[in-house]
C-alpha cells in the first residue's frame, strides 16, 4: 500500500524525521539514517571554531536525504529569517524549520515571532516548517502565512517526556489542513506510535535516539513504531468501551 506524505511538493515515504545532534560521532548518525531509511534530517548552522578541527557533518549525511536546517539560536523573527537565508546560501535547499526561542529554561517557541518569520520566508519561496507551541489560533495564522506543515511540540525539547500536549495536538490534527509533525519531547517509540495513531503526519526525534544506550537499535524501534502508528491510524482504531464485549460467540457453550 502506497501511503506517501507530500510536503512542499516533495513526496516522502518515511515519516520518521531525524535530528542529527548529540550523536557520539557523525558516522553513527549516518548508520542510523541508512538502517532506517530516514529521508528528512535536520542540521543547525553555527559559527566555525577555527581552533578546533571538527568533522564536517555534511560529509556524513547521505546525499539522498532532504535537509531541513533549523534556525536554532534565533530569538526573534529577524534572526530566524537571517539564518534561513544563510542556510539556503550554504546549499541546504529551500526547506527550513523555523525555531524562534528566547526562553532558555524550557526552550519553548515564540509563536508570534514564528508567524512573522513564516510569512517572510514563505514569500521568499522557502518550504517553511515552523516549530510551534500547539495553539489552534497560532496554527491557523501559520497556515495563512504560508507554512507547508506545522510542528507542534509534544514536550520541551530533549525532555523525553512524551505527548504532554496530546489534546492540543489532537485539535490541530482535527482542524488544520496541513501535515502536523510532532517535534520535540518524544522519548520512546510508544509515544511516537501514539502520535501517529492520532493522525500526526510524521514525527521528528533526535535526543531519544542519539542518547539511547544503543542509538541504532532505538532508531529501528522508532521507525517500526512510526510505521505501526501510521497503519493503525489508516486502519481506524476500534471504539473504546466501558464494559467487556466478548469476541467469541455467545452461543453453543459446552456446559
Amino acid at each position, binding site marked *: 500500500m502506497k501511503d506517501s506524505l507530500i510536503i512542499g511538493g516533495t513526496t516522502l515515504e518515511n515519516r520518521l524525521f*531525524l*535530528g*542529527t*545532534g*548529540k*550523536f557520539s560521532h*557523525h558516522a553513527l*548518525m549516518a548508520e542510523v539514517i541508512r538502517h532506517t531509511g530516514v529521508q528528512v534530517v*535536520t*542540521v*543547525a*548552522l*553555527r*559559527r*566555525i571554531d*577555527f581552533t578546533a*578541527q*571538527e568533522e*564536517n*557533518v*555534511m560529509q556524513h549525511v547521505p546525499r539522498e536525504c532532504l535537509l531541513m*536546517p*533549523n534556525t*536554532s539560536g534565533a530569538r526573534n523573527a529577524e534572526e530566524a529569517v*537571517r539564518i534561513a*537565508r*544563510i*542556510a539556503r*546560501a*550554504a*546549499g*541546504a535547499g529551500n526547506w527550513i524549520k523555523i*525555531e524562534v*526561542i528566547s526562553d532558555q529554561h524550557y*526552550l519553548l517557541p515564540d509563536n508570534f515571532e514564528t508567524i512573522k518569520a513564516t510569512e517572510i520566508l514563505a514569500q521568499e519561496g522557502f518550504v517553511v516548517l515552523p*516549530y510551534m507551541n500547539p495553539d489552534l489560533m497560532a496554527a491557523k495564522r501559520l497556515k495563512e502565512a504560508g507554512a507547508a506543515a506545522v510542528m507542534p511540540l509534544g514536550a520541551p*525539547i*530533549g525532555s523525553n517526556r512524551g505527548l504532554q500536549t496530546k489534546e492540543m495536538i489532537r485539535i490541530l490534527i482535527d482542524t488544520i489542513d496541513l501535515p502536523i509533525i510532532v*517535534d*520535540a519531547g518524544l522519548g520512546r517509540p510508544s509515544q511516537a506510535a501514539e502520535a501517529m495513531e492520532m493522525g500526526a503526519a510524521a514525527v*521528528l*526525534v*533526535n*535526543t531519544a535516539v*542519539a542518547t539511547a544506550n544503543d542509538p541504532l537499535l532505538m532508531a529501528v524501534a522508532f521507525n517500526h513504531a512510526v510505521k505501526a502508528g501510521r497503519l493503525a491510524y489508516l486502519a481506524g482504531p476500534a471504539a473504546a468501551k466501558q464494559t467487556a464485549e466478548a469476541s467469541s460467540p455467545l452461543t453453543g457453550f459446552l456446559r
Partner: protein
Amino acid sequence: MNGKEKFLEASRTIKEYIALRNWDSASVVVELNSEIIGQEHWTNIVLRDNDQLEILRFVGGGSA
C-alpha cells in the same frame, strides 16, 4: 570575525583568509557586513578595516 576582533598582517581576500586557516571551504558560508557572499566572489573581495565577517557551517542538530 565570528564576533571576535582579529588583526590581519597583510591584505587578504575572503578566499585567502579561509584557506589560511586550513579549512575545507566546501560547505562554508560567509556573511560580510550582514550580506551573504557567494563562493564565486570570495577571490575578489579584499577584507577591510572594521569589516564584520561571519564564517559559518552546518553542525549536527535537531532542535534548539
